[in-house]
């Protein structure tokens, strides 16, 4: 090797280890651990992610010594994607955006009494992913520029299409139901300002007055967490409440939980490696967003492993895959942030704001002039991941005990937590109203086997597909596109993904046709639901028709396709015998079971605190709800109910204070001036 290179490498390593010394000595390590602890808490609370957590830290970061400030922010950012697995596995609610796919198999594992195993396998994968991201960041930060710039809008469009193509591999037994769900997701994604023409779409402004609160709310679009929680958590909780049991179907949890998780991790090391790579690579490209990475790696795990029949029913590999990528993406996303000052994810966007407050300017010159700070960031990422994983693994087993408690006792706390998480999305009444609406649709989607994942993916990618499709057409001609190698590779990847999707569906077809548990008792609810979906599609077409060409072409196409798929399902239902899989109705599985509560009753419980809030405000109503629910429905002792509701009140007051957040007021607050926090 020429001496010059040796010299360069020598310098690099020197800087690398000097940075490590700065991190672990002095007060920085204290701030790092503080950041890790806050990050763990933020990750566990559904609705709070790295974005919210970091914005909480910003006021404190201001004026801190740069290395300590960086250590604290990185500590937080690195562990959110680790601890958000807790609620995903234990209660089926993603703790933040990056745990969406973990729910798919993590929660069924918890139902089998294997929560500790799922959690620890997830933490080890997450740890590895985080370290992988840090190593990759170290290696490529100096040479990544051409890689990032090679991904133009055409490539991003293909990545988004690839994201949509995984729907096939993840959808339920009916491909058309999956497609309808994906279209519905895209329609929900179209709500708000159109990217190409800056017009308001689907905000009911054609029916209501423009300054109506509903129109104003929808003008801003529906927040990702609102959809994610409504779609996944709402139906699960309703179902658990109906059955009046604990999450875990076994009273005794399986022994040696975390050791088993480690073994699972080790025996799937190549899967972990591949998914970590996917996560970092997609994280590296700014513009595609971290929210579909989970699904891509989940789909990757499902299509590349042997014996994938149990995916979605509790396969540990369905947890390992997305968890490896969800943490490795942060390392990837840091590269464009530091290199160009263009953040690759929501979390890194705020991190950049924080770095600027610290007087550190991420950008092209940083690699040349402040390499030591970049290494500080990298080491903080690595060290924080290790701390975070150790703490999480240690807590996995005790926390798993939660799954053995009767769900009716847990429900009021969870419902409060979820309503709070939804409200925190944009802090508006609209969040709660639309989450409820989407949640009720999701309950029926689950019942009739319309893929909720497909809806989520459609929603997440809706904006990317529309924007990049339009921009690609403006920037490139066809012949220019087809000489771009990455574009062509991505076409092949998408084609392969569609092919494996068809294969999986065919396999499912065979299984579904041999099973008899899909017998339909009555088909009317199915028809009602299908007609409702068709109405949504027709409505979309009609109310977007008056917009400019660029504003309407996407929603109208999606609406028409959705209508077409609805008709196909209708025809299938019309010609099929009763008992055919198109009539799948999960309700039949529990029919005749007298212990089951009515569906609408549980939905009513879920939204009753909201009704109450209309009159007395959100804050009072939540505590009251906890009390009434515990004492009347869960039949807990008066003392326990009272202490619980006071506990919830104190927790909410603390959050309101620290997050500078007002809860939605009710009619009462409109008439009487009340003191904080009930005002």
């Amino acid at each position, binding site marked *: 090797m020429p001496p010059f290179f040796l010299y360069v490498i020598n310098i690099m390593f020197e800087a690398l280890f000097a940075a490590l010394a700065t991190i672990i000595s002095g007060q920085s390590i204290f701030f790092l651990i503080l950041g890790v602890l806050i990050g763990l808490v933020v990750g566990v609370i559904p609705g709070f992610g790295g*974005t919210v957590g*970091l*914005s909480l830290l*910003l*006021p404190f970061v*201001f*004026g801190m010594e740069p290395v300590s400030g960086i250590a604290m922010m990185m500590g937080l950012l690195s562990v959110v994607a680790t601890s958000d697995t807790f609620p995903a596995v234990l209660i089926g609610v993603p703790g933040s955006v990056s745990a969406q796919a973990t729910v798919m198999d993590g929660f069924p594992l918890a139902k089998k009494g294997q929560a500790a195993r799922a959690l620890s396998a997830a933490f080890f994968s997450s740890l590895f992913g985080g370290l992988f991201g840090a190593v990759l960041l170290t290696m490529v930060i100096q040479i990544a520029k051409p890689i990032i*710039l090679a*991904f*133009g*809008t055409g490539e991003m469009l293909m990545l988004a299409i690839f994201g949509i193509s995984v729907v096939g591999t993840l959808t339920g037994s009916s491909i058309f139901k999956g497609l309808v769900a994906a279209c519905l997701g895209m329609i929900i994604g179209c709500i708000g*300002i159109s*990217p*190409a*023409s*800056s017009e308001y779409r689907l905000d009911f402004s054609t029916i209501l007055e*423009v*300054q109506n609160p509903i*129109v*104003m*709310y929808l*003008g*801003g679009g529906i927040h990702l967490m609102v959809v994610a929680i409504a779609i996944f958590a709402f139906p699960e909780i309703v179902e658990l409440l109906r059955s009046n049991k604990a999450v875990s179907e076994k009273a005794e949890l399986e022994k040696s939980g975390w050791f088993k998780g480690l073994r699972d991790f080790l025996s799937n090391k190549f899967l972990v490696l591949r998914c970590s790579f996917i996560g970092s690579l997609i994280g590296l490209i*700014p*513009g595609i967003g971290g929210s579909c990475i989970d699904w891509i790696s989940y789909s990757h795990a499902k299509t590349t492993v042997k014996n994938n029949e149990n995916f979605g029913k509790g396969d540990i590999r369905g947890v390992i895959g997305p968890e490896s990528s969800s943490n490795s993406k942060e390392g990837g996303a840091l590269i464009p942030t530091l290199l*160009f*000052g*263009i*953040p690759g994810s929501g979390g890194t*966007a*705020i991190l*950049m*704001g*924080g770095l*600027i*407050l610290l*007087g550190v*300017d991420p*950008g*092209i*010159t940083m690699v040349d002039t402040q390499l030591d700070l970049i290494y500080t960031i990298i080491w903080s990422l690595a060290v924080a991941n290790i701390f975070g994983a150790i703490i999480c693994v240690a807590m996995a087993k005790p926390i798993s005990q939660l799954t053995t408690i009767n769900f009716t006792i847990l429900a009021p706390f969870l419902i409060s937590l979820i309503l709070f998480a939804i409200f925190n999305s*944009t*802090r*508006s009444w*609209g969040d709660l109203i639309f989450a409820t609406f989407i949640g009720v649709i999701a309950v029926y989607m689950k019942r009739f086997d319309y893929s909720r994942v497909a809806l989520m993916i459609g929603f997440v990618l809706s904006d990317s597909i*529309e*924007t990049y499709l*339009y*921009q690609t057409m*403006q*920037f490139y001609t066809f012949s220019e596109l087809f000489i771009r190698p990455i574009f062509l590779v991505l076409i092949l990847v998408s084609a392969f993904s569609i092919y494996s999707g068809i294969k999986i569906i065919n396999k499912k077809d065979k299984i579904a046709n041999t099973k008899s548990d899909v017998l339909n008792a009555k088909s009317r609810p199915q028809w009602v639901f299908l007609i409702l979906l068709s109405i949504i599609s027709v409505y979309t077409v009609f109310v977007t028709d008056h917009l400019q060409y*660029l504003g309407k072409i996407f929603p109208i196409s999606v609406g028409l396709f959705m209508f077409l798929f609805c008709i196909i399902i209708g025809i299938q239902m019309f010609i099929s015998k009763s008992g055919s899989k198109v009539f799948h109705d999960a309700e039949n599985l529990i029919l005749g079971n007298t212990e089951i509560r009515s569906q609408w009753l549980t939905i009513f419980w879920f939204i009753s605190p909201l009704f109450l809030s209309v009159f007395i405000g959100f804050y009072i109503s939540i505590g009251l709800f906890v009390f009434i629910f515990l004492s009347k429905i869960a039949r807990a002792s008066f003392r326990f109910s009272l202490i619980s509701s006071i506990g919830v009140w104190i927790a909410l007051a603390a959050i309101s204070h620290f997050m*500078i957040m007002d809860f939605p007021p009710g009619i009462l607050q409109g008439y009487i001036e009340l003191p904080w926090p009930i005002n």
Partner: protein
Amino acid sequence: MLKKVLAVFAASLFSVTAALAVDYSGKTVTMWIPFKAGGGSDTWARAIGPAFSANLPGNPTVVVKNVTDGKAIGASNKYFAEHGKDKDGMVVFGTSGSVQMPFIFKDERVRYQYKNMVPIFASGTGGVVYVRKDMGVTDIIKDFDKLKGQKLVYGSQGKTSLDAVPILAFDMLGLPVNVVYGMKGRKAGRAAILRGETTIDYQTTASYLKHVKPLVEKGEMVAVMTWGAPSGGEVSRDPNFPDLPAFPEVYEAVTGNKFKGTEAKSWTALFYAGFATQKYVMLPKSAKRDVVKAWQNAAAAIVNDPAAMKVLNKKLGKYDQVTGSKALKSALKKATSIDSKSEKFLQSWKDTK
């Protein structure tokens, strides 16, 4: 003479007592920011928050409250609905160009009125237009015809956003720029020109200095003009970039017309709203006079304190900070009021492709 001195003394005494009458000690003052945490306006608010805390009577805690309910317009409406009649100055409003632009373009959703506001403090910025090196342009005026013949593509967030300033400027110059919409912010626009998908772009001063200037020095990009800076009622060269012509100058040189008339007036209004004085701290008009005075004094104290300004400049880039009742009022008027002819022009311009 003695009379004069006494009068000044009495006046200063009066203003001191007036300021003393407002006392925020032990209180928490909220800055209502209609944007999410971590963005430009949020960073700005968090930087000036402590400075206000140090200079307001009683040194209150100043906290930033990010209100995102209904995006910038909705959150601004909400401020006016909830605090539009406040007297005590406990909740102040922080706006930015994205709040002013829909107001100028008469978005139906806007329910706020700038005439009901009292400006306390304003920060401005500038913008630099640059092109890719392969356009072969070094001086926009001399090489104008060459530039006109190139494939010009600009990545935009939308015509009624801050991008109205560049898009109208390109139109006025007669540059055949293909505007591609759907960019998520100026950062995405910068990414697109780095990839070579767009060929002409602008960045605000702070972002230009950080991210584009190094590229200009390396010879990958060429800076061609600035939007200018306000000086004495005119828009002239930006003092941060004395070597670059300002847009009005380029317009006059290239078209041979004076920078006058409806188009020029409309552009100037947009420029004031989006750049020259784009971020304001404001109080509702209902605020007590003492309260307004206390805030204005605090703002003046911040600007006059070199240590505080050094911190601000370091965190935010060197922007003009406007204080003082008169200067602010005229700036706000320029940024938010527009004659009916220009308004009509902008309305029809908005709807053309």
